[in-house]
């Protein structure tokens, strides 16, 4: 399989690999995918008091395109507000990484991971409101 230069770059030099304290109130964690499907992504965000995502980390079990999609997602969410981050679409990831059709699910998973992390963060801020499950 031929990989785009950007996928190769993220695979070789993944950005923001690691973990944040998932118990912390200002951290949102999203874990999506399943091992038997061949991809699991964990994406975490740390949100400042003024609502800006100041840090993001990921760990991904998956193919090079899955790694690249989640690596890119952490880059993109950083510096955005929670609402702005919700605007990131999988199609943007597909375009940026030149993903072939068979790898589109990797970008979908990355979008899901962002949303799951944001949802987790929000539910921690408003523990009474039930997180809207998508």
């Amino acid at each position, binding site marked *: *399989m031929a*990989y785009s230069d950007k996928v190769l770059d993220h*695979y070789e030099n*993944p950005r923001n*690999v690691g*973990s944040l304290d998932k118990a912390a109130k200002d951290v949102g964690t999203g*874990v*999506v*995918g*399943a*091992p*038997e*499907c*061949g*991809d*699991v*992504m*964990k994406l975490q965000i740390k949100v400042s008091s003024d609502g800006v995502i100041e840090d993001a980390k990921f*760990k*991904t*079990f*998956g*193919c*090079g395109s*899955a*790694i690249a999609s989640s690596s890119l997602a952490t880059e993109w969410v950083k510096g955005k507000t929670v609402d702005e981050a919700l605007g990131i679409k999988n199609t943007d990831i597909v375009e940026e990484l030149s993903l072939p059709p068979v790898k589109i*699910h990797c970008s*979908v*998973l990355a979008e899901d991971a962002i949303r799951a992390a944001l949802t987790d963060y929000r539910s921690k801020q408003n523990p009474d409101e039930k997180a809207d499950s998508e």
Partner: protein
Amino acid sequence: MTSAPSTNNKHIYLDYNATTPLDPRVLDAMMPYLRENFGNAASRSHSFGWAAEEAVKIARQQVADLLGASDKEIIFTSGATESDNLAIKGAVEMLAKKGKHIITCVTEHKAVLDSCKYLETNGLADVTWLEVGKNGLVTPEQVAEAIRDDTVLITIMMANNEIGSIHPIKEIGAIAHEKGIWFHTDATQGIAKLPFDVNDLNVDMASMSAHKIYGPKGVGALYVRRRKPRVRLSPQMHGGGHERGMRSGTLNVPGIVGLGAACKIAKDDFDKDQAHYKALRDRLEQKIRGALDHVELNGDDEQRLVTTFNISFAYVEGESLIMGIPEIAVSSGSACTSASLEPSYVLRALGVGDDLAHSSIRFSVGRFTTEAEVDAAADTVIKTVRKLRDMSPLYEMAQEGIDLSSVNWDAH
């Protein structure tokens, strides 16, 4: 050591079970038959034909010598795929009046599986497909239990190409002979890597291929026993009646000369090759298994080809693993690297889960593998697995003591 065939490829070749380079000594033996000695071995009326015939005669003896057979028992073919087809279909057709039950196992090469399937689908045979154990092996008892009154053929490979597991051929052959059933073995991966003697192993037919033993591609042989029992096969290729009528077609003289030369070298260098294979395979294996936890050997630890090492790396996804080692030529059980989009049927048959099948790598060393190559390959694999595990949420969870099977995954 014989010098390796020259190549300008910087990649490290550890896929000798897939194919081998031509040994330069084999190429030397073949050259005259690609140039001036171009005759047809069936031309009886001139020196061009006689030279070709003589070369084929010598090659036939060289093949027979490696197998412990007589030269009259060697049929030249286009490779092991054809040999398997001829053995299985040819025997079943020949014995149609006697019965139509055959016994094989689920981890055979496709050439055997699909020949059997063809016969089954067309109502020409009833097939018993023996399952294998976790180590990839069938037992002689399984074979004995599967035998029926109308069993005419047992076909079990000598050693498996993917995992290297070595079946108890000698014992299975003894059972077959006791019952008067013909026994074929696809010995493509066993020959030149294991001691081989058709009489010692109770084999009636054996398939082999030149390109797995440092000979050229597109040529192979089928051993067909002449006495006790006398095996006769219905030809699958009709024509001029070459090869005692069992396989028509003008002989591939340069290829056959190459196969013969490869067999002679395999016999002469057997001990040296064995020591070399084992030293390098063990070195590679010890380095990788010594450096990484959560790895699973696929196949049998003991009953295994000295060239072969098939291992799965838990918590690492197969395609990303292969992506991290582009300079190392190996085979992978990952669906992403095969045409079928299915993980290896052999690993599945051993009960290896899809996740571990995807992250499997088969390393196979050979005559021209060097210590430096093995060391470099081991280092790269170790480095890549560590990097991917540092990135793997599954490895992290496993380190935290979470049982991954208890997690409620949000599967898509």
